[in-house]
């Protein structure tokens, strides 16, 4: 990191080059698969090839005999020894699921783990898997949520009537009255396919017995080390103090590595029994079926609109195909509840009604993925707004301006009971429209194109609730209510500041952000600050990295701890320097009088504090290690508005993004280049979500997309240059920070969807099913029949 700075230059707001990226760029990152311990065994899993079947028998005799095989274990053999993952019965539908770590009696999706083999190396373990014979009795599979909810449908779980893992009705405000008096009622169907977070690195773990002081040490590619520790201890019947969890460098998370899965827990159980380290690394084929999927929604949305284009009420029906189990910890409620509940987004909605369902099917469970629920909620509403604008002959941007929550109405409580404050919805929309020269774009669009392409323009606005504190519930059914995270600041004997926090980064550079905040609060040079993270044995308690919360929590805790540390530094320095405390300040790691007549480096001060303590009154030398917890209580809304221009080829159905202009409000920015990377990375995923990515199953529940050749994500060719602009306003959280990890994917899905629909509309077409693959585009244009 740069060592020199101008006097009083703030580090917050500066694109500090992150030291934490150096090992990664030099090929010396330590990812999970790079860890190797003496005596380490390797695990491989036998997985179900059936979507739904009863297990009649398992014959592992030949595998057990194979040289190099240490152990083979089935679900039955683990029964009673560990506690399976049980979801809370849904308080509305009563639906409940129990997930054994290895299937017992029944398999419920292709890819579910049935047996584990531990061997001397991975190749032997995989060869042994092939020798295990399982006899199945296939059962009818549930693969369509609309059929699965019917009374006579087969059940994925006996404990889940109508396969509703969750169902919820909600109404607030007078919806019926709004629809009766509406000038216009618009309705729209919307669906979006199944997604994969597609972290470039899959999951994995090394579980070790009695490493240092801990019974169990887990290295795990995961976003939430302390949460993993809590659940490992609970399910393996250990004390939390007996378990240490370390998240090494992690090749992407995006929510997929925020859930609790069976495989890692199986490895922990085996390591304890074998008293040897056990390693498991998920390969890509496994990852495509064994790590959580996302989205997979069908939405029917209606809006009551007055003659001025103001939305009076929203009424929606949502079905989410949540897969075979309620994802452990976050529950099957995540997608259904957030999709329907957050439907109003940044708009003034006084009346809201929805029925939302999470229907169990014989597919991989759906879990959290970047911006859970909101991309589909937002895209369906944005498309509907465009429909209404067209019918009322109002420009789409103007229609949005009439409905966004304006600054002067804040704090504003929406019909979903969320309070919007300190957020720039209208400025973001005006900024994207101005920077994109929206009026000019529309004028150009109106002229006949000479390239035979259909031009479409999409504008979408979004709200993203970030940095949720203890006062905002994550949702019913979620086992965990996160809220407080701690940071420890410690001045070493050399005057160097160590920041310790269990807030892993999968590229978000959380430690760099905390370093910048600490530098400003304490007047310490960046080069005198170092970080410890990701290890429950070294960092204080924290919930970890998810839901665009980490920079908010980490920075807030740094600010609190730094204030106390600064107080202690100045008190001791005043004594040692024999000047009044009020005369002192800290600049570039030196305590000095305001006139600079007297100075003392932090190194000299800490040296005396630690090594000459007998000359210092005890009450002035309490130690230079401070731990503070921070809870922002409420969340902060971040926002954005994106403008997208596409050209659709009516011959091939290919969609090309011609221009992309984003305006965002992400609060006070700590490191602009890092924030930009988060926003642009999210937009790229959103483009993939809107145009390309889809996990496909056949009617029997067999996955058709199990390689990166079948499930295609954008390359550098599909992503245009993103023009990014800011309309930031500080949040009420300490430092004014907001989260920025997720929001942009919401805007991208909405704006791209609207642009494609707008293009098709020029030829009288439309599109309701996404991603907008060439086939769906041609169907939308009437070139291909609807049932293709």
């Amino acid at each position, binding site marked *: 990191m740069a060592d020199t700075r101008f006097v009083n230059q703030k580090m917050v707001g500066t694109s500090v080059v992150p030291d934490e990226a150096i090992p990664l760029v030099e090929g010396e990152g330590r990812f999970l698969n790079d860890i190797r311990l003496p005596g380490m065994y390797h695990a491989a899993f036998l997985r179900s090839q059936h979507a739904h079947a009863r297990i009649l028998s398992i014959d592992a005799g030949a595998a057990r005999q194979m040289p190099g095989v240490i152990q083979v274990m089935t679900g039955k053999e683990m029964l009673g020894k560990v506690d399976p993952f049980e979801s809370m019965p849904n308080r509305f539908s009563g639906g409940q699921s129990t997930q054994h770590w290895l299937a017992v009696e029944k398999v419920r999706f292709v890819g579910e783990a049935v047996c584990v083999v531990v061997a001397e190396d991975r190749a032997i373990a995989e060869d042994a898997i092939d020798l295990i014979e399982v006899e199945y009795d296939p059962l009818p599979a549930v693969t369509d949520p609309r059929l699965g909810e019917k009374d006579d449908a087969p059940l994925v779980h006996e404990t889940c009537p109508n396969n509703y893992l969750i169902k919820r009705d909600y109404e607030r405000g007078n919806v019926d009255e709004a629809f009766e008096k509406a000038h216009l009622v618009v309705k729209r169907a919307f669906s979006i396919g199944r997604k994969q977070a597609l972290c*470039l690195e899959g999951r994995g773990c090394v579980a070790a017995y009695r490493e240092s002081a801990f019974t169990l040490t887990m290295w795990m590619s995961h976003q939430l080390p302390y949460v993993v520790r809590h659940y490992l201890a609970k399910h393996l019947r250990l004390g939390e103090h007996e378990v240490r969890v370390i998240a090494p460098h992690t090749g992407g998370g995006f929510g997929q590595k925020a859930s609790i899965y069976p495989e890692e827990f199986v490895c922990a159980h085996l390591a304890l029994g074998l008293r040897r380290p056990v390693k498991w690394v998920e390969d890509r084929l496994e990852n495509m079926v064994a790590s959580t999927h996302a989205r997979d929604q069908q939405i029917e949305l209606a809006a009551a609109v007055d003659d001025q284009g103001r939305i009076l009420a929203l009424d929606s029906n949502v079905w989410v195909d949540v897969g075979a189990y309620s994802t452990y910890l976050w529950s099957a409620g995540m997608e259904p509840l957030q999709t329907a509940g957050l439907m109003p987004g940044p708009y003034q909605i006084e009346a809201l009604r929805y029925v939302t369902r999470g229907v169990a099917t014989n597919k991989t469970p759906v879990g959290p993925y970047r911006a859970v629920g909101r991309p589909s909620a937002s895209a369906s509403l944005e498309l509907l707004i465009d429909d209404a604008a067209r019918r009322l002959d109002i420009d789409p941007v103007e229609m949005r301006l009439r409905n966004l929550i304006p600054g002067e109405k804040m704090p504003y409580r929406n019909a979903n009971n969320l309070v919007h404050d300190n957020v720039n919805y209208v400025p973001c929309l005006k900024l994207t429209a101005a920077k994109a020269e929206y009026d000019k774009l529309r004028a150009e669009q109106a002229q006949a194109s000479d390239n035979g392409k259909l031009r479409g323009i999409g504008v979408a606005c979004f709200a993203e609730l970030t940095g949720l504190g203890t006062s905002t519930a994550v949702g019913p059914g979620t086992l965990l209510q996160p809220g407080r995270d701690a940071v420890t600041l410690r001045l070493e004997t050399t005057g160097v500041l160590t920041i310790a926090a269990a807030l892993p980064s999968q590229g978000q550079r959380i430690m760099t952000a905390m370093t910048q905040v600490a530098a400003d609060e304490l007047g310490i040079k960046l080069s005198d600050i170092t970080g410890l993270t990701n290890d429950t044995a070294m960092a204080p308690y924290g919930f970890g990295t998810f839901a665009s919360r980490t920079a908010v929590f980490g920075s807030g805790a740094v600010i609190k701890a730094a204030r106390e540390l600064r107080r202690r530094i100045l008190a001791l320095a005043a004594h040692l320097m024999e000047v009044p405390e009020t005369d002192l300040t800290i600049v570039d790691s030196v305590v000095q009088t305001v006139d600079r007549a007297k100075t003392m480096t932090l190194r000299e001060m800490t040296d005396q504090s630690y090594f000459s303590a007998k000359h210092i009154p005890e009450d002035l030398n309490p130690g230079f290690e401070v731990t503070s917890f921070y809870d922002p209580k409420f969340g902060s809304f971040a926002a954005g508005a994106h403008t997208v221009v596409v050209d659709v080829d009516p011959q091939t159905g290919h969609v090309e993004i011609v221009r992309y202009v984003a305006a965002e409000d992400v609060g006070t920015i700590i490191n602009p280049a*890092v924030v930009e990377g988060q926003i642009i990375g999210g937009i*790229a995923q959103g483009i993939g979500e809107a145009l390309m990515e889809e996990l496909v199953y056949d009617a029997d529940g067999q996955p058709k997309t199990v390689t990166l050749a079948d499930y295609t994500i954008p390359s550098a060719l599909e992503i245009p240059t993103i023009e990014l602009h800011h309309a930031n306003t500080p949040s009420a959280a300490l430092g004014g920070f907001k989260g920025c990890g997720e929001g942009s994917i919401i805007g991208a899905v909405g704006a791209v969807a609207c642009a494609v629909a707008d293009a098709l509309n020029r030829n009288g077409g439309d599109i309701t099913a996404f991603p907008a693959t060439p086939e769906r585009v041609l169907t939308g244009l009437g070139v291909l029949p609807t049932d293709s």
Partner: protein
Amino acid sequence: MAREKTIQVTVNGRAFEKTVSVRRSLADFIREDLHYTGTHLGCEHGVCGACTVSMNGRSVRSCLTLAVQADGAEITTIEGLRNEDGTRHPIQQAFLEGFALQCGYCTPGFLITAIEFLEENPDPTEAEVREALSGNLCRCSGYQAIVDAVMSMSGKPAPENA
């Protein structure tokens, strides 16, 4: 067919002679036998490009190459990019200062691909850079910072491999 074969390879300037299983991939050989874990596996079926290494000056997917195919070859991995004095290769520096990596899992493949590309085309257009990088997937960055980092090398003297 023999199940094992003895091969000689030079990796990052060091000569190795090792007996390997004929079914061992070059990626596993480099990572597990030679302990150069900087090369990453993202798919093991030739799509993502994370495993790209330089073999006799050409970038290859080490997940699709067998170790025995590298017999007699000169290989450079991300660990071998540093200059002799230990400082970073200019493209490593450009990636670092250009915020061109987030999780960093894809980085080794992009660096190796970019070096080969810049040797052939030292002054590329943005479209050429995007085309050249299109066989490497990055899930985090949205590519913009990577493309910019590679563009920032344009016009500079062709960087040489260590």
